[in-house]
């Protein structure tokens, strides 16, 4: 490596590295604790001092996916031997499995609403971004600012009329209603980011295609779309993460059929208080996909996070 006066010295790097790693380790403690708690038994989870070493158990996950009822010791003894490990864990607490819990359905709702709204945001957003990037649209700057400014409204402020509107249209607590709502919130981010990506594709490509006899539509989906694929993919991840994490609208506008996981997870209650291992299990299953996406997409993170305001 060539010597440069702006290159930090080895000692500087060592100190900087140590401090950053120290911060990273501290920042990870709460997340690690969630995962660790999900493999504890309820008594282990609330012991003092907090247990770092313990015998792992799947009780949290079993409790997350089932509802259970307490039975008398005589009845418990009269039952046939447990069929699987879940049954065995539950029986050890003098209970039997009564049925599945609501968690699976809530998680599925998160998936449906997340992917549905992401697809719609990207579909509409790409079209709008292409038009803003390539055509002269009257008042384009004002329209773009208007699209961005919708992001400044506190969700609760919009929630009041949307609550009334959805009640009238029969959209409250439906998948469609939530998909439309999240799309409306996400589309500002999508248009801004995608416009930035499409701006970077040279116009000459399409012009060549147009001269070759392509129509605008053909030029759009045969030339521009493939070029913008990476940008579209990273925008999609951001829309998905927003819809996945959203809480305020979900808690106000859904209560059953279309309720997503974030309002549901904190309400998991065990026998005699909150069931922390089950909550931690739900949190782990819910947070892990996002963590994996983040690690996979780290190179494309910055632009999405900063609303496209910071370019590479």
């Amino acid at each position, binding site marked *: 490596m060539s010597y440069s006066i702006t290159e930090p010295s080895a000692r500087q790097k060592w100190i900087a*590295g140590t401090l950053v790693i120290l911060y990273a380790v501290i*920042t*990870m403690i709460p997340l690690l604790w969630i995962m660790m708690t999900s493999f504890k038994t309820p008594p282990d989870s609330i012991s003092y001092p907090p247990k770092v070493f313990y015998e792992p158990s799947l009780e949290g996950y079993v409790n997350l996916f089932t509802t259970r009822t307490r039975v008398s010791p005589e009845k418990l003894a009269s039952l046939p031997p447990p069929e699987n490990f879940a049954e065995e864990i539950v029986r050890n607490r003098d209970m039997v499995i009564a049925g599945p819990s609501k968690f699976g359905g809530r998680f599925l709702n998160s998936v449906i609403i997340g992917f549905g709204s992401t697809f719609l945001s990207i579909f509409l957003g790409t079209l709008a971004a292409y038009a803003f990037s390539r*055509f002269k649209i009257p008042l384009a700057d004002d329209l773009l600012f208007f699209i961005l400014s919708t992001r400044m409204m506190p969700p609760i402020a*919009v929630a*009041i009329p949307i609550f009334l509107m959805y009640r009238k249209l029969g959209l409250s607590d439906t998948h469609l209603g939530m998909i*439309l709502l999240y799309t409306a919130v996400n589309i500002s981010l999508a248009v801004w980011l995608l416009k930035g990506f499409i701006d970077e594709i040279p116009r000459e490509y399409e012009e060549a295609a147009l001269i070759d006899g392509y129509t605008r539509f053909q030029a759009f989906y045969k030339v521009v779309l493939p070029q913008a694929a990476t940008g579209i993919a990273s925008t999609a991840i951001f829309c998905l993460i927003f819809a996945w994490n959203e809480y305020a609208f979900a808690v106000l506008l859904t209560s059953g059929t279309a309720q997503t996981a974030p309002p549901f997870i904190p309400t998991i209650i065990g026998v005699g208080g909150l069931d922390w291992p089950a909550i931690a299990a739900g949190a782990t299953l819910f947070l892990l996909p996002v963590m994996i996406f983040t690690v996979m997409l780290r190179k494309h993170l910055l632009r999405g996070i900063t609303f496209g305001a910071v370019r590479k």
Partner: protein
Amino acid sequence: MSDTTADKLANKTPKRVARKIRGLSDRAIAWLFVGPTIFLLLAINIFPLLWTINLSFTDFKANRINREVKYIGIRNYERILGDSDIWLSMQATAHFLFWTLFFQVLLGFALAWLINRKFRGNDMWTTIIVLPMMLSPAVVGNFWTFLYQPQIGLFNYIVAFFTGADPSSFEMLGSVDLAPWAIVIVDTWMWTPFVMLICLAGLRSIPDYIYEAAEVDRASKLRQFFTITIPMVLPFLMLAVLFRGIENFKMFDLVVQLTGGGPGSVTEMASINLKREAFEKWRTGYSSAFAIILFVTVFGLASIYVKALNKVKER
């Protein structure tokens, strides 16, 4: 009419052929492409906003639809400006806003500066630091209430371990003095990486030759830091503060899960107060007026701030 090469060529060809080449006119395509987005925003953002403005002049209650709705002029607005609860919630918001921004700017900039020393593996550690901000604030906030439990909570245990205090002697969420700081800690933990990432982009945008020139001129490292690094990162840092400021002014999910506005109402910030008025007390007209006031406040502050930001950029 746009003047791209393709359009010029198209204009020279006979009309019938031109239409075949271009399909729909560009203008038609433009509106076809932008239309649905604008429609969706009008239906789900602008129409509700106008409706909120309308409701804010009434005494409407959403849980009693059949009651006659009366227009009461600006009475709601007058009442809000004289309501001490609202002012307390604005104070709580200001406290939260100030201290979260303070710590996040400080820590975020320091981290970015350290990461920019380009030590080995800085990419991997940056990714790890970024993780908290990608996660659901509601789910994570809920779990923090567990960490904050007196006696059994990990946070209390660690603090007690280092200070020698009794871990059950303080309640982060239950005490009037500590609860505002409990939410500041979690928000800082979650969003420092955001400020860090933007600062990092700023630091990386400074070309090496500026430092090289300063080195040739024998400017001290400290001087370089204050005359090159800080001014060049400032626009980025201000942008980060703008984004975080808007988000934290609207703060809802994290704080609802952590304290629910309590104890009493010391952490009842604007959004939480609004939710209580609108969906628990069902004072729809009154809360609509409050929503409008909040929106105008954010919008106004943000516009002034953006003007300042542009001035800094121009320098």
